[in-house]
Each structure stands twice: as structure tokens, then as C-alpha cells.
């Protein structure tokens, strides 16, 4: 089953609650092998909750999440990650009192130790700043450097599915471009990517397909180009500069 079907990740009727507050109201999402799929929407729409629910924290209250044919809805977070999912989460969540190198070592927790040196070298090539900062503590990095580290850390385990939460948040345009270039590059090398973004223009241009989310619901979906051309999407998420 694994790897043969077109769909890698499948969400069906997923509802998530924080206490009594409902954050996801029954969403359906598909991510196919080799795709970049983006989820766009305003603050508080439930985008980050979607990514976290895929990883089992918080767990979906109802509905089903399937990864390559395997039902992961009830699995513990670390078990889901061990199936080859990696996330660069909202707020980056670098370990502040550990060095850049240690953060990357932790990223390789579920990876094959034999690949470690090669992967570390590759991250340093993708993000040369991290090489310069390798022995500095995570907490001392700038926001952009932390973002690079969060992405690199997620890549260290060679995931089959990479979940990225707002990689462009709060970064200078130059750095945003650099990070989106990296995302395109690793996708072309075969990695499936599910990208949450507020920067809708960049995200839709990059993605094969996209979903638009508001108040815990999926409003519409389509190819990146279709959504870019859609008047409603333009009015709500794109007008007023990108």
C-alpha cells in the first residue's frame, strides 16, 4: 500500500477542539505524493491547528487522518513522526539553550544515523548562515536564522511529508525568497510538502494546489493558478500588495 497510491495524506471530516472551543469544523484535505499543497487563510482560521492535528497534538476529536493508507488519527505524536512526518511549527520553537548543531541532531532523531553527516552538510549548504552559527545557542539567533534552523531541523530526518507552518513569517523579503527557493528545490528532489502560509501570493505561486481556510472550515480548493485567479481569493487574501 505504502507509496503506491497517489494520495499521501488524507484528512476526512476532521474536527479539533481546544477545551470547549472548536478550532476545526470537519475539514477534508488531500496531499498527493510529490506535491506542494498550501493552506492559506487569515489569522485564527485554524491553519496551524490543522498541522498540529496531523501530528496528533491536539488529537482530532472526530474524523480520520490517513498517511499512506495507515490510519494515524489515534497515534501518539512521536509515533506519527516516526512514520516519516516532520514539522517546522508555528513560532519556530528552536531549543534556545542548545546549539544549532544540537538542534539539528535532535531533528535527526528518527533518521538513519548513517545519513547524519551527509544531511548536516546539506543543511549547511542550503543555509550557509547555520554553518557560521553551528556552535551558537539557538536562543541567540535572529528570527530569520531561527526560521532556517526550524526548517533544516525538520529536514534532518529525511521526512516523506514535510509540514511547514508560516516559514515566511516576519522575515525580510530577501530571506523569504531564499526560503521559498529552498522549498521549491527540496520538492523538486521529491519531497512532499504541506505548507501553511499567510503570504498567500507567494504560497499559491509555489504550490501545485491550495486550500483556503476560514474559521475552521475549508472554503475552496483548486490549483495554485486557479486560486490566484479567483476573485474572492484575490479580494480576501491578495489585494493590497504582496
Amino acid at each position: 500500500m505504502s507509496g503506491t497510491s497517489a494520495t499521501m495524506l488524507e484528512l476526512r471530516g476532521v474536527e479539533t477542539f481546544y477545551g470547549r472551543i472548536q478550532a476545526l469544523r470537519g475539514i477534508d484535505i488531500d496531499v498527493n505524493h510529490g506535491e506542494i499543497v498550501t493552506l492559506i487563510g487569515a489569522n485564527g482560521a485554524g491553519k496551524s491547528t490543522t498541522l498540529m492535528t496531523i501530528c496528533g497534538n491536539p488529537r482530532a476529536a472526530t474524523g480520520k487522518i490517513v498517511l499512506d493508507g495507515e490510519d494515524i488519527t489515534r497515534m501518539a505524536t512521536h509515533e506519527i513522526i516516526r512514520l516519516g512526518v516532520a514539522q517546522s511549527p508555528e513560532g519556530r520553537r528552536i531549543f534556545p539553550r542548545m546549539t544549532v548543531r544540537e538542534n539539528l541532531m535532535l531533528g535527526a532523531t528518527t533518521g538513519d544515523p548513517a545519513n547524519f553527516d551527509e544531511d548536516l552538510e546539506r543543511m549547511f549548504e542550503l543555509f550557509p548562515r547555520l554553518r557560521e552559527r553551528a556552535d551558537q545557542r539557538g536562543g541567540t539567533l535572529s528570527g530569520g536564522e531561527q526560521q532556517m534552523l526550524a526548517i533544516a531541523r525538520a529536514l534532518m530526518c529525511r521526512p516523506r511529508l514535510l509540514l511547514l507552518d508560516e516559514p515566511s513569517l516576519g522575515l525580510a523579503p530577501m530571506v523569504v525568497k531564499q526560503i521559498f527557493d529552498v522549498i521549491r528545490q527540496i520538492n523538486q528532489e521529491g519531497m512532499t510538502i504541506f505548507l501553511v502560509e499567510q503570504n498567500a501570493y507567494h504560497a499559491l505561486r509555489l504550490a501545485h494546489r491550495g486550500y483556503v481556510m476560514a474559521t475552521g472550515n475549508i472554503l475552496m480548493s483548486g490549483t495554485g493558478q486557479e486560486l490566484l485567479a479567483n476573485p474572492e481569493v484575490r479580494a480576501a487574501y491578495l489585494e493590497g500588495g504582496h
Partner: protein
Amino acid sequence: MEFQFAYFVDQLINGVTLGSIYGLIAIGYTMVYGIIGMINFAHGEIFMIGTFLTVIFFMLIIGTITFFPLAVLIVLLMSVLLTSVYGWTLERVAYRPLRGSPRLAALITAIGMSIFLQNYVQLLQGARNKPLTGILEGKDDILRVKYDLINTLNAAGQPYLVTISNLQLLIIILTVVVMVVFSQIISRTALGRSQRACEQDRSMAALLGINVDKTISMTFVMGAALAAVASLMFMMHVSTTDFFVGFLIGVKAFTAAVLGGIGSMPGAMLGGMIIGLVETFFGAYFNQEYKDVATFTLLVLVLIFRPTGILGKPDIEKV
């Protein structure tokens, strides 16, 4: 003058010996606090169980193994192993079901487990003192061998001899070795990295595939193992135990952990040393009965002027 110095050295050796024991126990408090933010008040009882296991294992093997250092090593390994099982079970049974509940619930449970373990041992082993001396029947004489350091006369003109015994050397050396091994585990191994990751951001650690529950279990196991090492030293040194022995020593080791900066491993060791030295020196120079008062006064002073402890750092880094 020379006598003053000799007396000081004598007390210094005693203080460092005692401080080693406190420090090793304090690490258990500090590691658990670091990773799950709770004070494991039952840790003193884990130490107490270690002292009983030391007695029991010596009883079992001292007849068959005549070479005493080998007997000590076997007892140490067995006691570390079984005490760790107690530490693991304590977390599994009492603390893990409360993960995510308010801190007060965990705190009360810890106090409850402390009382439970005291009564459990009292019920199984009786309330009377358990001396180790009778069991060893002098086979531990090798530990009492002393080396002369300073030979001088006291104020009254009588000979005053400062010595260090094999036991004191063993305690100090074993502490240093154990400390080096543990700090290497924390700083260089995957387990240590996982522990530090869980300390800083538990749910992020899980997002990287770290089994947080297992990592917390291992932290309790490591803390209990160190307490077992300390309990063997304590039994060689003090030679008697009872079901309540963990209380005061636990409180002092906890004080050591707070003094050094709770959450910091070097801090726990430093705090243990300071408590051991303050207690010994206060007893030696001022008043033996009030030595505990001196210890806790020091704690109060540190908490007033440096609430994070000596090596504890206020968390100012951006996350």
C-alpha cells in the same frame, strides 16, 4: 596556628564527604524538576529504599564473597538496579497518570508517595534501626584504613592527627567518577539531548519523534540510580538506617538543589557541597546541635538575595 589549620583540614574532609552524598541525591531532585517541573518529594524515600537494599544485599552476599571490594561493587550494582526500578515504578504509577494536571496535584501526590514508601518499608522491615556493622563483622576494615595527613599538637599539647580514610577517598572519588559519567551522558548522548529537549519544550520534542514518556522515565531511573550510589556511601559512612532516614536527608538534598539553582546539575552538586561544608563547619566551630539551623538559614538568605539559586539562570532567552 598549625593546629587550627589541621582542624580545618580535618573538617574539610568530613564536609566534602558529606557534601558528596547530599550532592548525588540533589541531582535527582534537580533533574526531575528540570524535566517535568515538579518537586519529587518521594526522592528522599527512594534514597531510604537504597539504604535498605544495601543492607539486604550485603546480608545476602557477604558470606559467599570474601573479597570485600568485589562485594561492595556487586552490592552497588544490584542496589542501583533495584532502586532504579523503584524510581521508574514511582513515576509510572503515581506521576504519569497526573501529567497535564495542575502542579498542586502532582505535589500532593509526591508527598503522599513519600508517606506511602515510609510506611511500606516500616511494614516490611520494621521500625527499628538496621545497622550494617553487625552484618559486615569487620570485613569492611579495609575501608577504615587511614592515611596520615598532618600530625600536630592541639591546644592542650596532646597529639592531633589528621587522616583521610579509604572510605572517605572512595566516597569522594566515586562521586567525581559518577558526576563525570552523568554529565557526559547529559551533554553528549542522544538520551541526554532528549532530556534537555524535553526540559526546554516537551511538545516540540515529541514533534521531533522523541518519546517524551520514556525520556521522563529514564530521568527518574537516573535520579534513583544516583540516590542508590549515595545510599551505599551513606551506609558505609553512617552504618545504620531506618524507614524515616530519607526525610531529613531528602530535605537537605532538596535544599542543596534549590541553593545551587534548581534545574542545574552542576548547581545541585555545588549546593550539596555547600550544605555538607556549612553543616560540618558550623558543627565544628560553633554548635553541633544547631547545624541544621545554619543550613536552612543559608537557604533562606540565598532565596532572598538570589531566588534562582547560585547557578540557576532566570529564563530570559526568547523562545
